[in-house]
């Protein structure tokens, strides 16, 4: 072979070798220099696990420090590293250990195993396949595990790679349905809520207040979740702890509620409904009662019936329970629901007539039992009545006359002056304004209807089909609506006695009564008196807040107050029977609101003591029939209880679920210190 040729070949060969090496170096440079950060992140995700530590939620106490909602620690078991070959064995082994646990009661090992597998499959299916690192997110497979089982698991750690034991705080309601549904409930955050609270550091599987106080005070109650960072090997076994940032418990709420009065109110309401059922009102199945402090707006008790045991929500509600609660509509806080006020509205009519000078305080009317085409509730009438007497006997004819004299605009104005038809500003979610009728409101309501019918007619005409009969029907409907557009005299009369389009919540009614008897001041009713941090520091103190001073003279208020006092007195007072033998002087107003096609709603407003009012009570019993006979005794019971609370014998818990006050969450006693050491949390774990 020619030497020259060989050299040429060798040089070519050397060039090839160099080329190959350069390819390698370029690729290495790309990986290690250009994309190094990306791969570093991936490597970190491989070997670092970030576990969230749930913060105990703040607890809820009554005004005297009785714990209404508390926490207790429970052990939970989660699985990580589902990519492991061993995971099937681990689940099998774990199933054996979990046998006999409360959450797996009466199930065989095989059943438990399939249940766990199903959970895992559900979890992985839920996740986007692209989101590969969800494999490292722990999946909770069991809650509320006994310490004995936890010991067993810890002993056999090595056979159980990927099994994680955590302690999580869980809600506990030691007194069952006390203050339900006002406290509301918590649950796992759903996608909509997650989107809404994205910037506040919520993640999937976090708990969030869904209703009531739990929802309204969520930012205070929630606390700050902590995190633990662990280094793990390929099998998911922890290698070392890289640091922990402790969870900070949420703040505690101290309510204006008096737990004992609350229990008494709930019991009284429940008994009242039972009584209504017993006395021939079969539809009476629900109701509400509100007790307000007259000079501050503090809500001392707020009851809604029916209730439920909030403990069913703990650790995720079962479908069966959810269906049951929903069927009863027990989640609705009826103290905020809207009811027609019936005769309890008559104080507004009286105010309107006096304030607009349509009548003088000494105005007297001879009630014959008729006003134009309308008939009084009492056949034959009440004879000669003045304003006080008219309130005492709830004379319809008198108030119809007043309504006719003053007109709807004035009545609506004074209703608003007392805070009716407006949001009271109570610290609960989902409050509605209620409705005060007036010509404009009526016109608006029917106008909408008219537009709808007109559209239907147009459509039929355009398509030129459909029977003549249907079109005629619609035309008739249209002319009726056109007639309804206008405010008519009967609207005024209905309004004057609290019928028609009047709708107010029991809370608004109680507040309205309070305003009448406290000299015309509308307070903001509220439930939370103060918010205290877990280490006992006062975070926020809520002072009584005057929302509005009603534009009503003190003389008018005085006359009405006297009238309300007369209601409780014989002879003739509609609530005289209710208050017979009471050791205190009171004022009250009955209300029986007509409901089309049903029994009447029973309403009752009361305050006491008459001389220097302390509390105002509103009771509503749906389809309860009669204000005085059904709702009245409930209010009397509440007032009696209020004045004699220390001597009244009470168990706070409903009898069947009575529990002691022990078993509090340990973190409560010793507030955890915030470690100064800063933990760098690798956000990518969650964001990718």
């Amino acid at each position: 072979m020619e030497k020259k040729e060989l050299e040429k070949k060798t040089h070519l060969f050397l060039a090839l070798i160099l080329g190959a090496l350069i390819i390698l170096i370029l690729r290495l440079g790309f990986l290690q220099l250009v994309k190094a950060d990306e791969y570093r992140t991936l490597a970190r995700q491989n070997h670092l696990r970030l576990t969230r530590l749930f913060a105990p939620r703040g607890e809820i106490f009554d005004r005297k420090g009785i714990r209404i909602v508390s926490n207790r620690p429970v052990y939970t078991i989660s699985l990580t590293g589902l990519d492991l070959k061993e995971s099937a064995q681990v689940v099998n082994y774990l199933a054996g250990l979990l046998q006999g646990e409360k959450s797996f009661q009466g199930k065989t090992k095989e059943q438990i195993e399939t249940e766990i597998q199903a959970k895992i499959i559900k979890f992985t299916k839920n996740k986007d396949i692209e989101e590969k690192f969800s494999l490292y997110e722990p999946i909770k497979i069991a809650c509320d595990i006994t310490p004995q089982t936890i010991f067993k698991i810890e002993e056999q750690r090595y056979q159980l790679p990927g099994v994680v034991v955590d302690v999580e705080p869980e809600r506990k309601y030691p007194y069952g349905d006390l203050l339900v549904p006002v406290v509301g409930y918590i649950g796992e955050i759903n996608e909509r809520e997650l989107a809404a609270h994205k910037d506040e550091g919520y993640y999937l599987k976090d708990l969030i207040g869904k209703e009531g106080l739990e929802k309204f005070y969520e930012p205070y109650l929630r606390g700050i979740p902590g995190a633990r960072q662990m280094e793990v090997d390929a099998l998911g076994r922890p290698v070392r702890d890289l640091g922990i940032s402790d969870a900070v418990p949420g703040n505690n709420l101290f309510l204006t509620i008096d737990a004992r009065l609350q229990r008494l109110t709930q019991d009284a309401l429940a008994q009242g409904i039972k009584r209504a059922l017993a006395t021939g009102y079969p539809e009476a199945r629900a109701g509400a009662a509100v007790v307000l402090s007259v000079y501050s707006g503090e809500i001392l008790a707020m009851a809604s019936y029916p209730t439920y045991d909030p403990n069913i929500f703990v650790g995720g509600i079962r479908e069966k329970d959810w269906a049951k609660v929903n069927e009863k509509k027990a989640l609705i806080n009826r103290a905020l629901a809207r009811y027609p006020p019936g005769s309890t509205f008559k104080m507004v009519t009286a105010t309107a007539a006096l304030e607009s000078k349509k009548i003088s305080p000494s105005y007297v009317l001879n009630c014959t039992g008729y006003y134009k085409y309308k008939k009084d509730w009492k056949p034959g009438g009440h004879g000669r009545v003045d304003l006080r007497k008219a309130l005492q006997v709830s004379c319809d004819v008198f108030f119809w006359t007043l309504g006719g004299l003053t007109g709807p605009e004035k009545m609506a104005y004074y209703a608003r002056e007392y805070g009716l038809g407006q949001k009271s500003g109570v610290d609960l979610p989902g409050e509605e304004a209620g409705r005060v009728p007036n010509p404009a409101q009526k016109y608006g309501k029917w106008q909408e209807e008219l537009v709808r019918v007109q559209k239907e007619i147009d459509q039929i005409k355009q398509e030129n089909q459909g029977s003549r009969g249907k079109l005629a029907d619609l035309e008739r409907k249209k002319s009726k609506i056109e007639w309804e557009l206008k405010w008519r005299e009967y609207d005024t009369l209905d309004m004057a006695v609290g019928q028609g389009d009047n709708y107010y919540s029991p809370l608004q009614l109680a507040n309205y009564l309070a305003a009448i008897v406290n000299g015309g001041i509308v307070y903001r009713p509220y439930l939370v008196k103060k918010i205290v941090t877990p280490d006992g520091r006062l975070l926020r103190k809520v002072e009584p807040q005057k929302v509005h001073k009603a534009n009503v003279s003190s003389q008018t208020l005085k006359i009405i107050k006297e009238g309300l006092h007369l209601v409780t007195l014989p002879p003739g007072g509609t609530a005289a029977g209710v208050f017979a033998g009471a050791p205190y002087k009171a004022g009250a107003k009955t209300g029986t609101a007509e409901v089309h096609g049903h029994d009447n709603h029973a309403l009752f407003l009361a305050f006491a003591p008459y001389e220097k009012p302390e509390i105002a009570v509103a009771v509503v019993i749906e389809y309860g029939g009669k204000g005085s006979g059904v709702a009245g005794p409930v209010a009397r019971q509440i007032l009696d209880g209020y004045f004699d609370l220390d001597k009244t014998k009470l168990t706070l818990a409903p009898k069947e679920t009575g529990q002691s006050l022990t078993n509090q969450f340990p973190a409560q006693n010793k507030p955890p210190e915030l470690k100064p050491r800063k933990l760098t949390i690798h956000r990518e774990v969650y964001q990718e």
Partner: protein
Amino acid sequence: MLGATLIIIFFSLIMIGSATLEYTPESLRQFENLNIFLRLLHLDYTYFSKQILWIFLGFGVMALMVYVPYEDIIKQARFLYVLNLFMLIMVLFVGHTALGAQRWIQIGPLTFQPSEFAKLLIIITFAAFLAKREERLNSWSGLWPCFLYIGLPFIIILKQPDLGTSLVLIAIMFGMLFFAGAKPAHLLVLLGIGIIFTAGIFTVHMYLHQAQDSLEKQILVLRPKEKIISQVGDKDEAKEKNVKLIALEEKYQAISEYHKLFHRYTLKEYQMNRLTIFLNPQKDILGAGYHIWQSLITVGSGGLVGKGFLEGTQSHFTFLPIRHTDFIFSVVGEEFGFLGALFLLSLYFIILYRGTKIIIQARDNEGVLLAGGIVTMFVFQVFVNIGMTIGIMPVTGIPLPLFSYGGSNIIMNLAALGLLLNIYTRRKKIIF
């Protein structure tokens, strides 16, 4: 060259000791307080000491290879070729299976891998074979016997299956033909045909595979529809759907038959998958792509200077599989970064550069061919192994010469280097 070799081997020993070390919480805490030299004392010495044994053995063989004149070795070519074939066939019958392939023979307490030695034996015997027929190589007809000569051991090794080694044989063949005087144009044409053929196989397979998948999906969608319509829909529509379904099913049957047939004569489904996964390892990061994906993370996370000796999270937390053999380069990349990898590559370059110089200096054709074969083998293995760890080559099970753990690997490569030195010591004396 010898110096570079020694450094590589020393480096390799440390990396093997590092790669096989697994952390425990206690040991990790200890490391953090140690400097590099103290850390050396904490290596995992089980594989380390075994490897030292192999290295001494390797140097012994190397010395032997330097001492015996290579002409004498080449004279035994015929015998060596038969011995080689015999050993390879032995593997098929009494071989020891590991990692899904039958590659090892057990003799007493030792296992050894004939396919490793086959590489060197082929170089020696092929050199003798080519030297005899040098002038006939510039025509097509002269090339055919060469293919047969290499083809026989190639097929036996492929049968084990050891695709990596058989590819090395192909590379050696091309390299040696190049130096033996075959026309470069011929070689390029052959290479082109090979590439087109391989690509063809994969394309056909991909087509069959996708066709089968899409038919399966269509059938799965259509079947319940047909059922519902046949129960409640009108008859014509049901009939139409039924006909369509039957047609689809027939087509599916045919395609899956072809698919099966295809796999019987070529590679199996999982093998194909393993060969192509490096193009997109994320497609299946827990299955076929796991090795490559973890290796990419390992190398990439090393960055410029690496995470530091014994501080690689990927290797010590056992994310990276087979890290002391095939994927040992990833450990280098992780712990010493781009600079470490560059250092190792330059060491290899020194050896290869010296190797090519020896090709020129060789006394006779046999020497040229031997040296050419050895250098080709070296560069191919280095390129494919490192390429595999950084995701530009398929995972084929080729070790990193002189670096990966394994007795056969180290002995064979040292022997090959010995042969190179042999050629060097008997080089042309340039007389002025």
